[in-house]
């Protein structure tokens, strides 16, 4: 086998990617796994192999501990694992281009599973670009990978399971919390309760969430409910934090570190660049790829598994990864259709169980409306420093979409390529033009998916293979 060719290319070594790799290998496929991190585990199990050998494991909780077995099964499955690899383009066929240690090269595969997970939903507010403002996920990664906690008592603003989990882990590690600005709007519990009957099979999860909340209440730091607006201020770094609740109560506190979180959204840049159809997920307020029951996209032999397919958490990511791998094995003749179907059946019921509580969580922790309607002075595009006011002014001149406004203002043109401003842009355009957000669409995503230097391009060893085409006249 040519080392650059495999049956299956998996992008991402988190729960979905690892599960897909193990399944595909079990059925005799050759598998390559690319991941931008230095070790397997994805975001949920970041640094699990290192931490598993230390006493730090205990304070990170049971669901983190579970990653150790997964990483070890993945390591021994026989997949070609390429850590610290940045994927920046996939051409039909498939030829994938990646950069590793400053060198670019390409690899080929007959099928692709994108297991690129989720990112935290960007939460723009005045001052969110100041040093000292980070996401809750970032702080949790610092805890897992560097055993680091905020030096002084930290302010946390947001909603969802992650802030509760992080605060619990932070206290267990000896960190200190200045206060929690809970941004869950009033009345959400009522709205969420109608989804609860379906989630009753997940009582253990509910109990876990409740026990976090109770323990945090007992910890004694202030918890301010129904916070609607935030403003961070400081000269060159965060110094103070101003908040206002839905009822108009205001407060101002000094702060060195503020952590924010308003849920997570699928990473859709790779599927979009590949031309995969996406549709708006009203419950999760984001785009998700259109997938069949195997996780196959509108592009033949391109699959999406894990949170990239819609937010479901690690427990849903694993069956999704295995289901996609089974389909690829059947496609490539390594497994009968009937065998794949029967193996997928139990994975599908596992997936359904894992997703049972999701509509309840989605309704309870849906982002507050202010997340999508930041004040005019807010930088929406962090890279090119374009404000909400500038986008609003452009949005009413004619009826431009996100791509036209991008061309006018440079919003979305910086190194993050719209990962931080895409949804805010879409909502601002929708509100200004009185259209539903799903009608406005998203930035057109083109390669390279990550910035590539000319030096890296020049290092593409097989530039010579371009001569397979007719030489230019």
């Amino acid at each position, binding site marked *: 086998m040519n080392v650059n060719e495999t049956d299956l290319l998996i992008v991402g070594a988190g729960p979905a990617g690892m599960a897909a790799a193990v399944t595909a290998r079990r059925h005799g496929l050759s598998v390559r796994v690319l991941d931008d991190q*230095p070790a397997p585990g994805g975001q949920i199990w970041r640094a699990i192999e290192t931490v598993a050998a230390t006493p730090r494991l205990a304070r990170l909780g049971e669901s983190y501990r579970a990653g150790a077995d997964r990483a070890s099964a993945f390591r021994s499955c026989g997949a070609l694992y390429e850590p610290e690899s940045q994927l920046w383009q996939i051409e039909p066929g498939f030829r994938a281009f990646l950069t590793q240690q400053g060198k670019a090269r390409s690899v080929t595969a007959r099928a692709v599973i994108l297991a690129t997970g989720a990112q935290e939903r960007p939460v723009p507010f005045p001052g969110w*670009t100041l040093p000292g403002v980070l996401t809750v996920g970032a702080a949790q990664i610092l805890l897992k990978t560097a055993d680091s906690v905020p030096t002084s008592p930290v302010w946390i603003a947001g909603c969802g399971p992650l802030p509760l989990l992080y605060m619990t882990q932070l206290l267990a590690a000896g960190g200190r919390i200045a206060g929690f600005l809970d941004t869950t709007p009033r009345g959400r519990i009522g709205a969420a309760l109608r989804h609860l009957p379906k989630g009753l099979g997940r009582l253990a999860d509910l109990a876990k969430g409740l026990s976090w909340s109770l323990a945090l209440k007992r910890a004694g730091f202030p918890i301010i409910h129904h916070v609607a607006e935030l403003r961070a201020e400081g000269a060159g770094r965060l110094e103070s934090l101003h908040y206002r609740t839905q009822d108009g109560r205001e407060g101002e506190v000094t702060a060195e570190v503020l952590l924010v979180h308003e849920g997570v959204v699928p990473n859709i840049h790779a599927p979009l660049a590949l031309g995969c159809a996406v549709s708006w997920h009203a419950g999760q307020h984001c785009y998700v790829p259109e997938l069949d029951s195997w996780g196959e996209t509108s592009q033949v032999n391109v699959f999406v598994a894990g949170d990239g397919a819609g937010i479901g958490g690690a427990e849903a990511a694993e069956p999704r990864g295995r289901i996609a791998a089974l389909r690829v094995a059947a496609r490539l003749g390594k497994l009968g259709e009937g065998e794949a179907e029967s193996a997928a059946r139990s994975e599908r019921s596992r997936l359904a169980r894992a997703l049972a509580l999701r509509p309840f969580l989605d309704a309870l922790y849906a982002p507050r409306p202010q997340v999508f309607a930041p004040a005019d002075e807010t930088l929406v595009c962090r890279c*090119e420093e374009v404000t909400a006011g500038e986008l609003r002014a452009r949005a009413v001149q004619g009826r431009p979409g996100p791509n036209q406004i991008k061309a006018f203002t440079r919003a979305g043109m910086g*190194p993050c390529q719209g990962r931080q401003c895409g949804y805010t842009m879409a909502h601002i355009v929708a509100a200004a033009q009185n259209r539903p957000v799903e009608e406005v669409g998203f930035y057109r995503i083109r390669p390279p998916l990550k910035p590539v230097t000319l030096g890296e391009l020049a290092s593409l060893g097989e530039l010579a293979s371009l001569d397979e085409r007719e030489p230019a006249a």
Partner: protein
Amino acid sequence: MFRKLHDPGAQAITIFIDGRPVPAELGESVAAVLLRQPEAWCRTTPVSESPRAPYCMMGVCFECLVEVDGLASVQGCLTPVRSGMRIARQQGPRSLSA
């Protein structure tokens, strides 16, 4: 801004930030080390030259772009530290020669 909870012991290494030696631990990222410095910013922006620091720590915000061993605009959160690594904070737009 952040502090490390344990003593790295045998995993301790030294890297250089803007020429100054700072302690680091094998396995952690450049961005994690930057966030422990008294000056926790890592670059100034090309547009307004305002300071920025690591924000997402998972490769999607590109705020932690720094120069690593002479290579500009490297994502610090995706770069594990190596002994003797030389990090430079980036000021304003990157130069073409960098």
